[in-house]
């Protein structure tokens, strides 16, 4: 499974780069799309997507609105659209976050921390199992950056994620920047955290930039990947002893396509240094 799931280094597909993407598609191994931006709409975004599909460039749908950590059931209109998108893309996996983003039909459009209790574990695992069963492809769960901890939690994030993987056999999308941001904000060892996860399930890695507010690191996806995150990425790969599909995320103040490709090349160099065969 692991070898077949390795796609190389990808970029987030953003409207700003549509023209360049269509011109330069051979330079980028694969793309990740924000699922919701392609689930209801046609127009130019869909045309670009279909063009990439025709060129057999892998595209992974990455969602922000599944709201796994909400007590509400999965929105059926959302599910149907996601199903259609997956049918169109035929991706090796799809992903979303360990968070909740809606409650009783109100959408906050932000990744809010989940309650880590046995009841919540049951609800989230049930949703993931249902999704994987119906969509017939693996789901990859992404760790989020968070800025507070609740004493209502009955387990740590690592324990919670490990238990979800055990109950669902889902994959993990390890956001190395999020781990780094959380480790600085909450003063824990980032690589120890990663080692405590069911690492054999890691199918994809996210790399992104953050903002140092002074008292807090904030995950903005709006800057270059910082040196410490590159170091953590290398340490993660060394620990995993295998290449993992890696995605450069940049969503705010998006730079030129060339600048994004430079970041992707850095990731490729690290992969090459760690694993000769990539």
């Amino acid at each position, binding site marked *: 499974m692991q070898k077949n799931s390795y796609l190389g280094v990808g970029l987030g597909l953003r409207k700003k780069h549509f023209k360049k993407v269509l011109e330069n598609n051979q330079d980028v191994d694969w793309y990740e799309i*924000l699922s*919701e*931006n392609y*689930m*209801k*709409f*046609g*127009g*130019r*975004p*869909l*045309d670009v997507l279909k063009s990439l599909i025709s060129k057999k460039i892998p595209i992974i749908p990455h969602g*922000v*609105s599944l709201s796994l*950590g*909400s*007590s*509400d059931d999965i*929105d059926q209109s*959302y599910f149907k659209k996601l199903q259609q998108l997956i049918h169109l893309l035929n991706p090796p996996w799809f992903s979303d976050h360990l968070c*909740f983003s*809606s*409650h*009783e*039909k*109100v*959408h*906050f*459009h*932000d990744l*809010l921390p989940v*309650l880590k*209790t046995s*009841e*919540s574990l049951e*609800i989230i695992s049930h949703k993931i199992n249902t999704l994987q069963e119906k969509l017939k492809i693996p789901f990859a769960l992404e760790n989020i950056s968070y*800025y*507070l*901890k*609740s*004493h*209502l939690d009955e387990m740590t994030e690592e324990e919670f994620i490990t238990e979800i993987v055990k109950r669902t056999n889902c994959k993990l999308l390890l956001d190395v920047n999020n781990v780094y941001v959380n480790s600085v904000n909450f003063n824990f060892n980032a690589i120890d955290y990663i080692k405590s996860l069911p690492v054999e399930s890691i199918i994809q890695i996210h790399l992104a930039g953050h903002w140092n507010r002074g008292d*807090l690191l*904030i995950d903005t996806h709006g800057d270059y990947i910082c040196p410490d995150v590159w170091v953590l990425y290398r340490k993660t790969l060394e620990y995993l002893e295998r290449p993992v599909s890696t995605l450069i995320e940049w969503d705010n103040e998006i730079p030129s396509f060339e600048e994004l490709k430079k970041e992707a090349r850095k990731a490729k160099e690290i992969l090459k240094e760690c694993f000769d065969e990539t």
Partner: protein
Amino acid sequence: MKLKDYNKIWSQFLLGKINLQEAQSSLKIKNPHLELYKEFINHHFEFALAKNFPLTIKAAKLKLQEISPLYYQEYQAYDWELNSMGKQFPQFLTNKNYPLYIQELSLYEWLKFDICLSCENEEEVISDIAQEELCLNPLLIGQQFTYDITDWINKDLFQTPLELHHILLVTRDFHLKNCLFTKASQILLEIINVFLEQNRFIEKNELKELMLSHSSTSKEKLSKEIEFALKQNIILSKDSLCLNHSS
């Protein structure tokens, strides 16, 4: 705590129904960063409004940091789709009694954004029609305007626009998916009415005959208007894809 109650407390806090102290206490959170999440959500709404309504913001001199939280408090997002966050903004401006031309400018900007991303596929419709047949564009939107917004946005946004009671027809370019705006003439409206009444594909010559039977328009003028309607994608033919609308 039950997950439903946890979600509910977060929701109440984010929607301003309970204060920070109540939320922190109920969620058993000791550090001071709960308020940060409100800032994140406001930022998302600010971003959405800035993206969808750049001209409205400029013309009305709106301060996004002030208006965005007010908009969010009144019009929460009921859709998982991120682009829908700005959908109710024209209505918000109406309720806040902004001048009618500001309301219409926001509606113009929303229509432009909405139609460009529409899932309707005009090409599928074309594939169904015969060579000589014409049909009404399924995407076509007709919107009544009091002010000449299309003219105004190319001039000084800080001057009040001219009044021009008219219907604006909205379609999109086949290739670039850009928006096409057309001020509806009487003949264009009559052409549209024929298609709405007949509710079928119509051959070009038959359309002319139908039009001429109850209109005083000359045959030459009518032909010109039909070609114009085709160029603006108001009506479609088998050759619509080949027309260069992007110029």
